[in-house]
């Protein structure tokens, strides 16, 4: 599934412009705990979190994920978005809750990492 398809299916607003949303994603890591994301993330997967501080983007950068989706309508501040742009990490926000996001993406064939 591409990032553009994920954007559409989760009704996301993209907060970083000019990103390549044709990138394909096969796996997902979803957590508000950054260490958990670092423990289970694989390069190129999608990261879903409700944590919107600068650490979420630092974690995304270090884990090497392909994009970050913020759930529950939580929006990061400008500084965080600028940092994501600098690190070339697409950032999207959806009003959906994490449980629903995971269910929808799982139904579409995406899997977690265990």
């Amino acid at each position, binding site marked *: 599934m591409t990032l553009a398809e994920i954007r559409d299916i989760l009704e996301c607003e993209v907060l970083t412009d000019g990103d390549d949303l044709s990138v394909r994603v096969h796996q997902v890591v979803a957590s508000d705990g*950054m*260490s958990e994301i*670092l423990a289970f993330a694989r390069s190129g997967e999608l990261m879903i979190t409700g944590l919107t501080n600068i*650490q979420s983007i630092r974690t995304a950068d270090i*884990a090497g994920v392909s994009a970050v989706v913020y759930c529950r309508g939580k929006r990061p501040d400008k500084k965080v978005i600028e940092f994501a742009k600098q690190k070339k990490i697409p950032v999207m926000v959806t009003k959906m809750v994490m449980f629903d996001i995971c269910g929808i993406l799982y139904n579409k064939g995406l899997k977690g990492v265990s």
Partner: protein
Amino acid sequence: MTGELLRESYSIQGRNFDKAGEISTEIKVLLRDLGIDAAFARRVVIVAFEAEMNVVMYADQGTLTLVLTEGDISLEVKDEGPGIPDIELAMKEGYSTASDEMREMGFGFGMGLANMKKNSDDFCIESEVGKGTQVFARIRLNSNG
């Protein structure tokens, strides 16, 4: 024993949550610019990031020293902080003494030390209560963790 190719030391400010993680981001850029293998660098940076966050969360101040040789990277992190009374317990996944403030930062869920060990080939902690903690981690180039 191979010789040192690079040695960098960084000062970590305890409880400065705004800057927390900056050093690890800097290390990631440094390793990329040196042309270090990405998967290997990723392990190094995960260890550095977890260590840096621990110092920021718990200690007054600390230092992180990175040493690159032909075959490995070692990280030595020393802090002046409360120390760890029971290292075995602290290493258990899920055990945490974090405050709400730390958890709001997305850390302190009891995975940090375990993550550091998982990504290291050699890993040890020494700690003295009331004085501080020292962590040593070595990540070898030709291993997959």
